[in-house]
């Protein structure tokens, strides 16, 4: 019977082992996960274009935060830290995608990949998430016409597809695209001091 006893002891141990104490930092990470996971996933999806991969990146981002929790100072800037991790994970994914090369149309996929890599590498991929800019986005809404604003808000807040917005507003999907491009124009105009948009032309001129 001694072995029987031993076996039940093992079970006893096994039941105990997952009891990792929850402390203040872990509570903060859980809070951050709840409020920011969807944002990080959206960010990754915007550049990877694949929801499965975006979910992996978002989960990995928070795992990395958790692994690093002893060295992270939790404040408002932690969101920025999460975005930095997510960006690097997305870049890794896009670069390894390039090497893997199992695309149907390799050259085209590579070109789109290159564009997304360039977009992530640009400083605006992170800088546009600051509180200051978020405030400007709110202000820019008042500069849009009612129809454009409505379309923009439906797209952002409700996460509707353009076809859904079109059906809801009684216009064609093409008109929705048109309104979104107008919204983007307003935003670019409103934020022009923060955007290095003319730099491109300047660089071209120098070389």
């Amino acid at each position, binding site marked *: 019977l001694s072995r029987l006893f031993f076996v039940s002891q093992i*079970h*006893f141990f096994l039941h105990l082992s997952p009891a990792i104490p929850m402390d203040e930092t872990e509570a903060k990470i859980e809070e951050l996960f709840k409020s920011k996971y969807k944002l990080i996933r959206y960010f990754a999806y*915007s550049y990877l274009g694949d929801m499965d991969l975006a979910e992996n990146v978002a989960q990995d981002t928070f795992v990395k935060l958790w692994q690093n929790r002893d060295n992270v100072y939790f404040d408002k800037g932690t969101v920025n830290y999460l975005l930095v991790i997510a960006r690097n994970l997305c870049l890794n994914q896009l670069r390894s995608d390039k090497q893997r090369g199992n695309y149907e149309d390799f050259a085209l996929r590579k070109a789109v990949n290159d564009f997304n890599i360039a977009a992530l590498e640009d400083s605006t991929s992170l800088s*546009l998430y600051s509180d200051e800019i978020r405030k400007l986005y709110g202000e820019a809404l008042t500069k849009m016409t009612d129809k454009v604003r409505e379309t923009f808000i439906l*797209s952002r807040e409700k996460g509707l597809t353009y076809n859904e917005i079109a059906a809801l507003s009684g216009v064609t999907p093409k008109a929705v*695209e048109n309104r979104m491009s107008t919204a983007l124009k307003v935003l670019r105009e409103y934020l022009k001091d923060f955007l290095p*948009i003319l730099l491109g032309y300047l660089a071209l001129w120098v070389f």
Partner: protein
Amino acid sequence: MMEIEELYIRFFQNRCTPQEQKMLTDKMESDPAFKHEMVVLKNLYVSSLAKDEEASPEELAKFKERIGALGSERKLESGQKPDSRRAGRRIDFGKAALWSMAAAILLFLILNLNFNWVAKKSPVVPIESLASGDVNSLYTSKGVKGRVVLPDSSIVTLNSDSRITYPARFAGSTREVGFTGEAYFQVRKDSLMPMVIHCDRNFDIKVYGTTFNVKSYKDDRDAVTTLVEGNVKVVQNLDGKEIVTNIKPNESCVISKDGVAKVESYKDPKEKYAWKDGKLIFDSTPLEDAIVILERWHGVDFELLDPSKKNMPITATFTTESVVQIMDLLHFSLGIDYTISDNKVTIK
């Protein structure tokens, strides 16, 4: 500044036709200024539509599962990390930390011992199609459960008497894993690199990213794959012919000894994998089958002397009961007599 066209919006959303994509990427290649402006516009577009939204409970549970799996790993590795904040925590939770450390070391030793013991007894047969290089093989002996995180961070919870074989690094176009026994797989999603689990009952499970339970013991009557979420393909290879069975969540693919597959669906399949939460559920299970499960669960041998009792149905849920307690219960409810001696239960 360039005009913003609807086309760009479609491009940022990945909704362009290949022709449109080609036109835009060609233009970017030949005009760096245009490319740079597109880069900034994309970032503007993406960030302006970003918003905060609460994560779902499932997403949070998945995250907790992952850091939970990491937690024990880290405790095995670490040991010297003098950090003031950690030290503070250690005082608060000193006892808990010590206990879980002891448990982790014990588990590690047991897994190791069992592995070595089995390795000597029956050398690990590498699965043919596995990529060359280092191959890991892990075995949980009877009475022990284990958990392993694969190189792609998929999580596999192993029931007793199970073996999983996997490469140190997944390479190639598929993630190849060898398996026998029972396990709860939480496969990390990767739509470009499916995972193929070769079960030794002559079938493969092919998945891209999903959660499922597989029970495939060599001596069992049926091999059962139960899907929790996502989708899986069960691929049998019978006389050179491939037979594919697709199953949906809450369905099982049951393969009998003679290789016939059928699909069963359940309202609540949880009891199929309740074992991973430490529950042993019998639902009109024939005594003969229950014995096999108890042998694995508790690491003891059973002998059934009276063959007429083979099909006696058992319905019960056990959690932390010892073999003695379980046998007592069966004695009172079914009226069966038993003796225990020398790690062996004999049912008369």
